[in-house]
């Protein structure tokens, strides 16, 4: 998880096992989250239709797991082996790992594992 962090990154927090997530400060001073998508949680299923955005945000839930606020579609897909481009939060040579901005405020809910959620677009492709 620590390998491949950007040059100048300062590690601030690490998940208890050390392999689920890392919070670090990048060279510009922004706090970021390097996370293993298969271990991440979110509130519920992603709704059909993507926002097609690079916006992403993740925090830490009351159980110490990653909680994805924004970037649900990408997290669900990535946890089920979809590749994510680096400009959308993918990490070079680390499939299953994402790099999102860190949201430091406490997350009020535990959430459900993203790996157990259906990929909305493929499920609803052709819906009308």
């Amino acid at each position, binding site marked *: 998880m620590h390998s491949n962090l950007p040059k100048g990154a300062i590690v601030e927090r690490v998940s208890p096992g050390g392999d689920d997530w890392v919070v670090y400060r990048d060279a510009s001073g922004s706090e970021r989250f390097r996370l293993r998508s298969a271990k991440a949680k979110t509130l519920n299923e992603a709704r059909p239709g993507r*926002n097609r*955005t690079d916006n992403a945000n993740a925090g830490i839930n009351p159980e110490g797991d990653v909680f994805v*606020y924004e970037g649900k579609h990408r997290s669900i897909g990535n946890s089920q082996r979809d590749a994510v*481009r680096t400009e959308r939060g993918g990490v070079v040579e680390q499939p299953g790992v994402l790099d999102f901005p860190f949201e430091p405020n406490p997350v009020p809910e535990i959430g459900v594992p993203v790996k157990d959620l259906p990929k909305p*677009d493929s499920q609803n492709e*052709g819906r009308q």
Partner: protein
Amino acid sequence: MSTAQEVERARLAAKKVFMFEKDVARASELGIAALSLYGVVDVVGSKRGDLAHALAGFFREVGDLDRCEPLAREAVELEYSDAARPAILGDYLVFLAELLHERGKSAEALSLAKEGLAVLLRDASPSDPELIFVHGAIAKIERALR
């Protein structure tokens, strides 16, 4: 003037209310406050476009398509003026196309979705999983137009 970070913070606050409290009215109020900050934000070009697109996404999520559409159009226009990020322009075009289709403007939606696909193909391999969804969106619009 407001900063891009202030706009984003305000948008995320609105999104959290929508996510956790499921209070659409309150979330919308906060979203409108973020929109006011966006109106006087101190960034231009594609950086401003990114904020417009993010706000468009929020308003789509809360079902306020009247606020969503002009923001989505603005994001596309601002991204055109930059043209350095084909993957982003492609995404914004497809987002706008899906939105317009949702609003019954399917002819314009189809043309934008096809343009979006062409732009995305400049930067991606035809087997990119993202493109599967774009093909799906185009097929859906075409079916509606038949």
